[in-house]
């Protein structure tokens, strides 16, 4: 059974200004002031997440609610195993797929078809197993002959179609999504939504960050409200969305 268990998870982001990132500045600091630690203390740190405790178990459809900068995306990256938390620990089991941003992760010089294979590899699918599915994925994108053109020749909408089709081709046990289904034309959106529904229903766990309350109410069965890196409330979706609206309104 897939699960994600968080204990006292904290994430502190060091913000490296252009200066403090360069070796020169640190060398100069050590020679002129002789204090490397001070440089480390001087740098700005953002507490993105603070002491999060949360269990997400099989069957959970968790909504992440919160204003911009509340820590939703950071939490998704921690759950995905991309950010190793700076404090506390995460115990996870199950194959994770994260759909965080639509535009990243494609190689602009490779063709659409090649990108499907490459993305498959990153999801741990051997090209041998991916090849038979390429046509089905290519059909879904409706890109026609463009599927054999380098991705850098694509329009933004075409890029979204390809990303979406590729990202939803491999079914994970744990699906983490940041809201990004905004692009694409209306007919594709309709199609994407249908595919998304299939995709979501086959996963064991869904964690979805979104500002669209109807979407969250439709797809989720639990919710947490994040504010400046803290979980301020947890409960069912209607309750938490009402609370969020009350707080922000």
């Amino acid at each position: 059974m897939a699960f994600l268990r968080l204990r006292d998870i904290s994430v502190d982001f060091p913000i490296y200004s252009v200066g403090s990132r360069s070796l020169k500045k640190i060398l100069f600091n050590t020679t002129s002031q002789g204090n490397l630690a001070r440089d480390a203390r001087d740098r700005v740190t953002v507490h993105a997440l603070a002491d999060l405790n949360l269990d997400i178990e099989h069957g959970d459809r968790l909504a992440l609610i919160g204003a911009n900068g509340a820590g939703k995306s950071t939490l998704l990256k921690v759950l995905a195993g991309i950010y190793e938390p700076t404090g506390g620990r995460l115990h996870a089991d199950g194959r994770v797929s994260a759909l965080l941003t639509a535009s990243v992760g494609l190689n602009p010089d490779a063709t659409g078809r090649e990108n499907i294979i490459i993305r498959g590899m990153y999801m741990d699918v051997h090209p041998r197993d991916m090849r038979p599915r390429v046509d089905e994925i290519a059909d879904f994108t409706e890109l026609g002959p463009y599927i054999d053109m380098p991705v850098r020749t694509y329009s933004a909408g075409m890029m979204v179609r390809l990303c979406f089709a590729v990202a939803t081709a491999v079914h994970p046990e744990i699906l983490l999504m940041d809201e990004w289904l905004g692009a694409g034309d209306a007919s594709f959106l309709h199609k994407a939504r249908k595919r998304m529904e299939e995709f979501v229903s086959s996963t064991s766990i869904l964690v979805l960050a979104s500002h669209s309350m109807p979407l969250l109410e439709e797809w989720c069965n639990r919710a947490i409200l994040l504010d400046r890196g803290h979980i301020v409330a947890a409960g069912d979706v209607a309750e938490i969305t009402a609370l969020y609206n009350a707080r922000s309104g």
Partner: protein
Amino acid sequence: MVIVAPSETRTAAAPLPPEPSRARLAARDLAEGLAKSWMWTALALEDIRLRYRGSMLGPFWLTISTVVMAAGMGLVYSQVFRVQTESYVPYLTVGLILWQLIASLINEGCEVFVRAESVIQQVPIAFSIHVYRSVCRNVIILAHSLIVIPPMLLLFGIRVDWHVLEIIPGLALLIANGVWITLLLGVFGTRFRDISPIVGNFMQVLFFLTPIIYPIEALREWRGIATWNPFFAAIDVVRAPLLGTVPEGSSWVILVLWTLVGSALAFALFARFRGRIAYWI
């Protein structure tokens, strides 16, 4: 206002298993990456295909430029150093080919994680995959250049015996060094973005400090700086057996020591900062 709903009460229920140490996580990363050889080989081949897309000769252009450079420099410098052209040209060619491998391993090593940014930010795969991919790519490119060596040896009438098999452990050590250097510089280069140009300059100086375009004897009383130069040792253990000569007595020892010390250093650094790479990018 803090509301904790009943669903959160189960939070305390399941105690977590003990946390593995950083060293164990790093070792697991390296081992998992190594086990996925299909992934990094396929990605390395893809890199080469994309890099040379639309070019008729592809990576063989690198081979040709090496041959042209070796022929041109060989003719001129054999006069300058007053050495025999037929022994100098093969020496120079093999040296240049090996240097190309070393230099590109090191230069690309600095950016190994920075270039993989979009992957690292999207999918949780072992960091070592990017390292093996970079090393594998450079070894494949080396293989394209190596094919000029047999015809060249024939052309210049250089006799090789079974000692030529010594290039196998030699190349294996070179590749092992490539892995730790890529790992070490990859971590450094992600945190400090000016590592890459610094290393680039450093490599240019090293090219002239290492006996590649001149024989080690030309250094006379300065010979020691080459003997202790690990880059010379790395080139020597492959170049000498290929040319039917014997490497310097110290080369193997220095290269093995350098591999052990470097690997330990790179592992320690990787274990300490593996978790930070995604934040630094």
